[in-house]
């Protein structure tokens, strides 16, 4: 199953092997390192979990099904955080998994993320509501 990153609410950048993910709607932000950073990159490219499991099994000699179970657990956690959404089909033009030399995947450590919630309080006190101009007012009489 492929996923998509929940842009525009979710922004992410890779810096020195660590992915920083910011969820602007909730105020939470995340750090993903090692295998989690690699898998996040694959998720961003629309890779199905099954293909990821094949690659990790190939690199590590791990049973494919156990890799897939780990990936499903990780994607469920990311989905619960509102960071990704499952897709019903593989997106057009997605990249193939070739090219990863195994960095961050050998040995295969189950992917984890660190969640930081200190900004959520700021959003609770001073939230930003993204709205459209639909339904905004007619010109008041003073300006007619």
């Amino acid at each position, binding site marked *: 199953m492929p996923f998509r990153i929940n842009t525009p609410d979710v922004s992410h950048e890779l810096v020195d092997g660590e992915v*920083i993910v910011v969820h602007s709607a909730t105020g939470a932000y995340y750090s993903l390192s090692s295998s989690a950073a690699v898998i996040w990159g694959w998720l961003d490219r629309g890779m199905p979990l099954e293909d990821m499991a094949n690659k990790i099994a190939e690199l590590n000699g791990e049973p494919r099904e156990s890799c897939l179970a780990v990936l499903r657990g990780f994607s469920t956690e990311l989905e619960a955080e509102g960071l990704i959404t499952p897709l019903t089909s593989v997106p057009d033009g997605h990249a193939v998994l070739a090219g990863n030399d195994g960095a961050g995947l050998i040995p295969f450590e189950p992917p984890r993320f660190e969640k930081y919630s200190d900004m959520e309080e700021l959003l609770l006190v001073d939230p930003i509501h993204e709205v459209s101009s639909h339904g905004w007012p007619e010109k008041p009489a003073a*300006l007619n």
Partner: protein
Amino acid sequence: MIGLDLSRSRDARSISFFELAEAAYHEAVSRGSEESRRYIGIAGRTIRLTFAGDALERLIAPAFAHIECDAVEFPDLTLRWWDDATTGVSTPEPPGAQPRTGLDFVDEAVRIAWDPARGSLSLYDPSRQLGLLRFPDSDSATFWEQAAPAHRLLHWWAAGLGIQLVHAAAVGSPDGGVMLVGRGGSGKSTTALACLGSSLGYLADDYCMISLDSAPRVHSLYSTGKADLTSLRMLPSLNDAFASAPERIDGKRVLFCAWHFQASLLHSCPLRAIVVPRLGAAEPALARIPAAHALRMVAPSTMMQLPGDRAATLARLAALVKSVPCYELALSTDPYAAVPLLALLSRGEIV
């Protein structure tokens, strides 16, 4: 009749709303509120500030006093300020919006930020490099508006130029400076204020601009500095200056540094390092940290305060933390003790 046609597209409706607000500004001027013009320089660009009447000008202009410059015929951005009560106009408000806490943000062909609680309205049309800032009365220009006027509008404008407004303090010299990043209460403002009157120049305590053209440069926006009662007790050299500063109900004060420390104010300098303050040390000390750590400290607080262009904001901040060394600065209870370390970093004598 010039009204909002709700059958039009979203972009057309937001443009129409902008035109109504702009008409209110011109009506304020035509009703006899004299238009005052000032010019400021930021990151090599010139911004024209116009005020209908002087009520808001008295509150807003001091924050920009240190970067005022000569008039130009074609500024890079124009910001128009007015308030309804003083000028006698009735600027349209979005009554369809809910009366709730926080900010309503419309991100269409023009950007609109509406604060229902304060009744303040900010609008930006990137196609005309024109911003509008309206308040119901001059009392509505709050402590924060005086300390950091139009910061969202300046963010929207700068983002179009690849320049990033950052939630950060900054100090340095013409040869180099450092940016202090972290969430509110991390010590960055107090540390920056401790540099006033020292060998280090002062650029910002809360918001600054960063350009990333060939090498990163930090640019001052506001000459203001904020301190609460705890910070004021740690900054005895500033007590006289803060004594006459506007005070918020919780005791926090905003200092207009151009009035007291003109010689300490620095407009711009190359950025040498990014510093993440950490409170609670016995003695100040510096330690290198990974760029990703610095990004976690600067990006979320910047992005949460500045709606619009968030993915590009994170990308620019990621490029920034990769471009200079990043440090954690352990702070003692004496903010002045950290100044020598910041001076060494600013001179590039610690790498």
